[in-house]
């Protein structure tokens, strides 16, 4: 990996290491802290949220539990209260009925006369509470009282602080406008044949004429059949009849309102339809009677019978005014809300109901029981039977498979005959329930979902056992109170609603707090992050700064050392490093200084040696020059005058002597020249040129002189120049000439017959100069030493041929110094070939 330039030095590396060992952990630490903080933040957020949720859940649970418990408690309390109310009502009814037993007994003791009867009836009156006039509301969507009754508790004295808590006052109970009415609508005296002898009536309900009641059609709504029962009575026995009345049909179920009638396709005639409390306050009332009868004894014999027809409205008062709610009583029943009471007779027939059309009755035309409400199945069976309903129902098993899944017969709804006879009201299983709790004379309750409402329904047997009512513990029948369960625990549900509101508020508040908390945590985290990373960044910068500074501090000495070494390297041999510190760096500097001392010393010695060598060389050169000069100076005279002498002398012998002097001088001169050349070469004094040299010209010129010498000895001389020779090549021309002259001199000198040749050619990038002769040749033993000094064939040849013995040595030395080489092949008596190779 290529490090960046600034990282290349020790300083850079130190900084990098610093950064690596400091900054990386720092960053890791910062990251770890941040991560942990984030986790903590998240955890806290989650926990806080979880706590809030758990708290809310707890509150909700508590709320629900409290509500449920409250509901349960309230329900139980309500149930108890309503059951008590039911039982009390049943008892009151029984008590009321028993009072009528007293009445009939007293009536029996009367002297039968119209006057006494009239007085008797007048004496027996009771309040009947009625609501005032009601009218259809202006919008036609409800019935409203013409004069609204506002009831407010009146508290005029100051409420003492001690009583202030839950201080509560109720206005006087209001059951409606009281109307004083006789208990009985009719009082008769009947003879043993059934003829009414005396008859006092009140109101217009019953026939005012004296009739024979043995004939059913002469009785009230042609439905009474008591006379046969009277015959069975013994003195003191009391007969009590069923509730007898004409059935009042309805045009519809529910609020009798124009829109509903319109929907049903019927004319809006509320007065023609059955009364139904708030649903139809102006409707036609069910009017009925319960007849008491007992024998009148005269002289120990039954002389006749006295009867009292109780106005059924007095019985209804017990149930119609009841409200199983905090209202307690109402002047008008409201069946819609499901809070109302009704009374069933010993045959489980409805004899008191807020909706008059649900009270069982008789067809006043025929005296037959009106058709009761049936479920679809029973209705279909009835229709299939083709019998009058009472005949058909007489053969039907009562309470047959009653359950909520059964559907009421729609045809009966249309017909408006909806009297409730529990025995055949098979879509209404509470009938069985009521009987279950009352058939043994007790009371009880259960909750049932009916008509779209959860209803607590209670039942209490009416403990009145006179006459036919004494056959079962149920007595006269039973009172039932239906109560909308929701109403019982309204307080609890209100509390629950309050709790729910509180919980919702708390929820919102918790959510807001939680959101605030989360925001706070988030802000806190952000601040932490900012602080953390900011301080980390600051620390990183500081660490890098310290790293740079420390690296600088550390490397300063190294760079100073390197500078010193560089200076030393550049030739400042006197340069020394600062070795004052006692650490490794000081030791290193010391080592360097010692080395520098020794190097400097060596350099000094070298300089000295070189100077000495140079001086020696200079002296040698001077010696050689002087030598050359001093040897040549006398030779000038010797050679010059020998030549002159030879010219001047007339005697050939003298001339020859002069010639010998001259030759000897020349020999000496050659010797001197060659010695000096060798000396120069060996001392390194000789310098070689390297200049462009025309080959052909040099060789031709060189050959010319030797050709003359050769031919004067009778030898042939040949010069061969290869065609591919370059025009010129780089060499030292003077030395090349000296080489060739030496070789050619030798060739001419040692050849007596034949030919001398000089050939120049290119061989493997070298210029090859070949001098060949047909001379005496060189013995093989001498081939290796021929180039050594004074080895010229045992000096013999030297003497014989006048050679110096230094020529070939010089040639080889020159060739070697010119970067070439020389080869020799020779055969004694045949000739020799010298080849000089010089780089082209």
């Amino acid at each position, binding site marked *: 990996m290529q490090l960046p330039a600034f990282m290349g030095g020790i300083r850079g590396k130190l900084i990098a290491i610093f950064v690596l060992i400091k900054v990386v952990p720092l960053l890791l630490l910062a990251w770890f802290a941040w991560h942990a903080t984030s986790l903590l933040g998240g955890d806290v957020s989650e926990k806080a949220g979880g706590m809030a949720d758990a708290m809310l859940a707890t509150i909700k649970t508590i709320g629900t539990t409290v509500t449920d418990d409250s509901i349960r408690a309230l329900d139980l309390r309500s149930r108890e209260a309503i059951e008590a109310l039911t039982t009390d009502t049943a008892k009151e009814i029984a008590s009321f009925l028993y009072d009528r037993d007293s009445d009939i007994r007293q009536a029996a003791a009367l002297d039968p006369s119209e006057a006494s009867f009239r007085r008797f009836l007048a004496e027996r009156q009771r309040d009947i509470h009625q609501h005032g006039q009601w009218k259809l509301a202006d919008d036609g969507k409800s019935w409203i009282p013409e004069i609204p009754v506002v009831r407010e508790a009146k508290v005029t004295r100051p409420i003492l602080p001690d009583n202030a808590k839950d201080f509560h006052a109720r206005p006087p109970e209001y059951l409606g406008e009281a109307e004083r009415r006789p208990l009985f609508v009719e009082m008769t005296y009947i003879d043993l044949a059934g003829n009414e002898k005396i008859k006092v009536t009140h109101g217009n309900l019953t026939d005012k004429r004296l009739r024979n009641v043995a004939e059913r059609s002469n009785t009230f709504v042609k439905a009474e059949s008591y006379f046969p029962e009277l015959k069975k009575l013994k003195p003191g026995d009391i007969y009590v009849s069923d509730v007898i009345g004409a059935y009042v049909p309805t045009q519809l179920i529910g609020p009798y309102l124009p829109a509903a009638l319109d929907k049903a396709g019927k004319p809006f005639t509320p007065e023609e339809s059955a009364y139904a409390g708030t649903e139809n306050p102006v409707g036609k009332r069910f009017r009925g009677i319960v007849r008491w009868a007992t024998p009148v004894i005269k002289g120990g014999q039954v002389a006749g019978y006295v009867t009292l027809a109780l106005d059924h409205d007095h019985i209804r008062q017990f149930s119609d005014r009841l409200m199983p709610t905090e209202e307690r009583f109402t002047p008008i029943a409201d069946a819609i809300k499901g809070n109302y009471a009704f009374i069933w007779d010993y045959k489980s027939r409805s004899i008191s109901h807020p909706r008059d059309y649900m009270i069982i009755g008789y067809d006043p035309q025929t005296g037959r029981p009106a058709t009761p409400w049936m479920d679809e199945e029973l209705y279909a069976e009835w229709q299939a039977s083709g019998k009058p309903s009472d005949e058909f129902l007489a053969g039907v098993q009562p309470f047959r498979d009653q359950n909520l899944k059964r559907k009421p017969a729609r045809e009966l709804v249309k017909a408006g005959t909806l009297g409730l006879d529990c025995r055949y009201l098979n879509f209404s299983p509470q009938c069985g329930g009521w009987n279950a709790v009352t058939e043994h004379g007790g009371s009880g309750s259960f909750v049932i979902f009916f008509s779209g409402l959860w209803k607590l329904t209670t039942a209490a047997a009416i403990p009145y056992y006179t006459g036919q009512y004494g056959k079962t513990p149920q007595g006269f029948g039973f009172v039932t109170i239906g109560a909308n369960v929701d109403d019982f625990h309204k307080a609890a549900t209100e509390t629950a609603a309050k709790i729910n509101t509180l919980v919702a508020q708390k929820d919102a508040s918790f959510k807001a707090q939680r959101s605030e908390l989360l925001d706070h945590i988030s802000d806190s985290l952000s601040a932490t992050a900012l602080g953390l990373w900011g301080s980390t960044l600051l620390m990183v910068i500081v660490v890098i700064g310290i790293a740079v500074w420390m690296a600088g501090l550390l490397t300063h000495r190294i760079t100073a050392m390197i500078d010193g070494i560089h200076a030393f390297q550049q030739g400042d041999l006197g340069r020394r490093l600062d070795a004052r510190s006692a650490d490794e760096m000081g030791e290193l500097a010391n080592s360097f200084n010692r080395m520098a001392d020794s190097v400097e010393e060596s350099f000094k010695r070298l300089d000295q040696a070189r100077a000495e060598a140079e001086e020696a060389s200079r002296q040698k050169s001077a010696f050689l020059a002087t030598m050359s000069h001093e040897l040549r100076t006398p030779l000038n005279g010797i050679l010059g005058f020998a030549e002159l002498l030879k010219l001047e002398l007339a005697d050939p012998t003298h001339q020859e002597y002069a010639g010998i002097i001259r030759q000897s001088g020349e020999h000496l001169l050659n010797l001197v020249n060659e010695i000096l050349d060798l000396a*120069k070469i060996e001392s390194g004094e000789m310098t070689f040129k390297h200049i462009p040299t025309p080959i052909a010209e040099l060789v031709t010129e060189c050959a010319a002189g030797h050709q003359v010498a050769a031919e004067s000895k009778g030898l042939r001389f040949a010069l061969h120049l290869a065609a591919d020779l370059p025009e010129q090549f780089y060499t030292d021309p003077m030395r090349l000439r000296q080489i060739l002259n030496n070789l050619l001199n030798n060739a001419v000198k040692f050849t007596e017959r034949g030919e001398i040749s000089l050939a120049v050619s290119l061989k493997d990038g070298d210029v090859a100069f070949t001098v060949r002769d047909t001379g005496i040749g060189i013995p093989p033993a001498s081939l290796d030493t021929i180039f050594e000094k004074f080895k010229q064939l045992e000096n013999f040849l030297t003497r014989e041929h006048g050679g110096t013995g230094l020529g070939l040595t010089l040639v080889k030395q020159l060739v070697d110094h010119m970067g070439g080489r020389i080869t020799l092949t020779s055969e004694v008596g045949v000739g020799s070939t010298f080849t000089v190779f010089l780089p082209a």
Partner: protein
Amino acid sequence: MPTTPRLALVVDDQPTNRLLASTLLKRWGWTVLEAESGEAALALSGEHAFRLVLLDISMPGLSGEETCARLRATPQGAAMHIVAYTAHAFPEDRERLLANGFDDTLIKPISRQRIEELITHLG
């Protein structure tokens, strides 16, 4: 200033060398004056316009090179053919001398033939 044709000066501290050079020049019909030192040569040069001067290099007193320089400074110095007459035979010596104002070199030992070439060249 023109030189005198065939008037030569041989300067050498050794009489033998002066004699040899003079003899050889005279054989070719030159008039030759001799001087045994540079100082003497300079003195003579004031009196004569030498066509050729053979000047030894290694001499007591003024050296040949110094003498050459001074001769060149004389009115006829430029026209003078000054030849180093010396036993300093190394090629570098010759180069040095030619560079220091000498027209030619005449290396001892000299030969008749060499003198002949020299004066033939001068005409």
